[in-house]
């Protein structure tokens, strides 16, 4: 009896370096996604060693972190950002790697475009020099982020040296309440187990509430597995998975499609397979989540309050909490609903897919952002998401409500381009990290779902989306 993780591991094992079960092993990589920030040194290393990519057709490249989200006709104004994107373009052209360039309609955040193109397929090992590669696990892939030395390793050998992780199952049973999303499940889990709770584990999400999620929701959940410390998150294949992939550009067709579907159907944990740890969550109990601190585990529910460090006995924890509250400019015991964001960011590889934009648009439709909101922006995850949203008229809804409608990219998720918070500014953000300075030096981030971000934009403070919509 095997877990899904066991199957994926076993199915890619090329060689074991030791006869012990927990030794290093060589694993074959099916899909290598590449972006501009973590690849230049890898390409350079490859070149210096006189090596060539092992398998070009496994690689798909895109620039996403540095690209501007405003007009792109004049290129990138920041010379260092431009050099990084140009370097990717050059490397891909020289080596013959498929790349979606900045002005290609298919360009977008690397973790959005992989699945969107059908370049992420069930049963694959997927890697990228980016920790949120865990996103692709939503397709029953073994998908995880790697460092630049490993990017070079995969380019040169199509393999990675790895140690098998332990397996954790997170069972979410029952029905989610109205207005509650995968983002709330993710934050609720992280609030429970902490940002190191999944360290050393590959997490499989299962249970009726997970099966009821769309692929977009599953991607949001697996995306955040890394924020729980797990390098990989994954979900078994079912009809939802297969429906999503069908007809996508890189997906198999004809007889190959049928053959693939038969294979993919087996990609689930065997009944009774053993996990090293099992965690249960009752979907009906999940409420809208809002982070109050500088780590995703510093989270509470919309009806909660900012915690009080004086109640914490553990000295390291208390010290971290005090530090976080000082940084966030929050007093202990403040009701979450009395926190007023200055800016709203709807985007990132966590929540920038069509379903996320629909959820946010539903909330703001016919309303306007509060006068205290300095900037509210929507950054679609890809050119194709943007295009689809425009077909549905979502752009009009956002624009009428006072939002800005931008070009696709990472944008203010990490503020490597011009989109960033000024020091002291507070943001309701649908991204995944609220670390100090993440959205701009001195910027204060509150992580929420797209519907909650939209509701905060309209109300001018955090508010329970279930009450207004």
């Amino acid at each position, binding site marked *: 009896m095997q877990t899904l993780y066991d199957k994926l591991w076993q199915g890619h094992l090329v060689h074991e370096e030791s006869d012990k079960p927990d030794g*290093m092993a060589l694993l*074959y990589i099916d899909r290598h996604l590449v972006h501009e920030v973590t690849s230049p040194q890898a390409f350079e290393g490859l070149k210096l060693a006189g090596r060539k990519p092992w398998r070009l057709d496994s690689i798909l490249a895109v620039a996403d972190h540095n690209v501007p989200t405003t007009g792109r006709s004049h290129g990138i104004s920041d010379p*260092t950002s431009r050099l990084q994107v140009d370097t990717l373009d050059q490397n891909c052209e020289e080596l013959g790697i498929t790349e979606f360039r900045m002005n290609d309609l298919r360009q977008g955040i690397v973790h959005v475009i992989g699945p969107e193109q059908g370049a992420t397929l069930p049963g694959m090992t997927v890697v990228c020099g980016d920790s949120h590669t865990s996103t692709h696990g939503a397709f029953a892939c073994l998908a995880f982020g*790697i460092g630049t030395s490993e990017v070079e390793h995969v380019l040169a050998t199509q393999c990675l040296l790895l140690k098998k992780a332990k397996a954790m199952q997170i069972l979410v049973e029952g029905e989610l309440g109205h207005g509650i999303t995968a983002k709330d499940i993710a934050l609720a889990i992280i609030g429970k187990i902490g940002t190191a709770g999944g360290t050393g584990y590959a997490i499989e999400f299962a249970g009726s509430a997970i099966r009821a999620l769309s692929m977009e929701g599953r991607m949001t959940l697996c995306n955040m597995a890394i924020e729980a410390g797990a390098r990989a998150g994954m979900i078994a294949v079912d009809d939802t998975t297969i429906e999503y992939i069908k007809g996508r550009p890189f997906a198999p067709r004809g007889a190959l499609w049928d053959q693939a579907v038969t294979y993919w159907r087996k990609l689930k944990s065997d009944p009774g397979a053993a996990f090293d740890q099992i965690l249960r969550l009752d979907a009906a109990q999940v409420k809208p989540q809002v982070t109050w601190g500088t780590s995703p585990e510093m989270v509470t529910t919309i009806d909660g309050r900012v915690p009080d460090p004086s109640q914490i006995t553990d000295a390291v924890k208390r010290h971290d909490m005090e530090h976080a509250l000082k940084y966030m400019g929050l007093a202990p015991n403040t009701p979450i609903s009395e926190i007023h964001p200055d800016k709203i960011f709807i985007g990132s590889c966590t929540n920038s897919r069509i379903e996320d934009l629909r959820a946010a648009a539903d909330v703001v439709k016919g309303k306007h952002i509060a006068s205290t909101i300095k900037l509210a922006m929507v950054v679609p995850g890809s050119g194709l998401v943007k295009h689809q949203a425009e077909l549905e008229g979502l752009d009009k809804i956002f624009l009428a409500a006072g939002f800005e409608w931008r070009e696709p990219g990472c944008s203010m998720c990490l503020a490597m381009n011009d989109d960033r918070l000024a020091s002291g500014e507070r943001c309701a953000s649908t991204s995944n990290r609220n670390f*100090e300075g993440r959205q701009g030096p001195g910027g204060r981030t509150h992580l929420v779902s797209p519907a909650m971000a939209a509701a905060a934009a309209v109300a001018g403070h955090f508010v329970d989306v279930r009450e207004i919509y």
Partner: protein
Amino acid sequence: MEKFHSCEGLVAPLDRANVDTDAIIPKQFLKSIKRSGFGQNLFDEWRYLDHGEPGMDAARRKLNPDFILNLPRYHGAQILLARANFGCGSSREHAPWALQDYGFRVIVAPSFADIFFNNCFKIGLLPIVLEAGNVDQLFREVHATDGYRLVVDLGDQSVTAPAGESFLFDIDPFRKNSLLNGLDEIGLTLQHSERIKAFEEKHRAVQPWLFA
């Protein structure tokens, strides 16, 4: 990769849990396409009073006198003593690059984030996991003692305190061997080329759509 045998060095204590990679090296410095030069921006937002951008002359920037690494007694530290979940967050190898470029050769903590831990080995920076209680003890000792040094021996897998007390640590034998000999892992893997090709053939037969 740089070889690592042993290190006898000054210890700097960073007494915070969950130190993330954005704190270790903020994103504006990730725009560099080079592998070196990140040391001057290690912990940039904590270390300097002004806001750092690439290309600034570090010598002209105002240091934050309260940040631990800026205290004269920790100048030249080679061993960083840290708290739980060190290196959480992104996969940026720029984080270990910055620590190494600054001068660190060893990081001791009760736990590390997975990707960061892995990245360290690739460049010859040694992350050591010790029990939380032992790390607490080291924090107490380093705070109390000027010029506190530790001896780290990879061969013996030991960390030895000035008073002679030794703590043993675990390391995967493959990783240990790679570090001790400064091996090129890509070169090692390429020695398995035939195996990889054979695997690929088998894989293609079962899942031909992966190679379409």
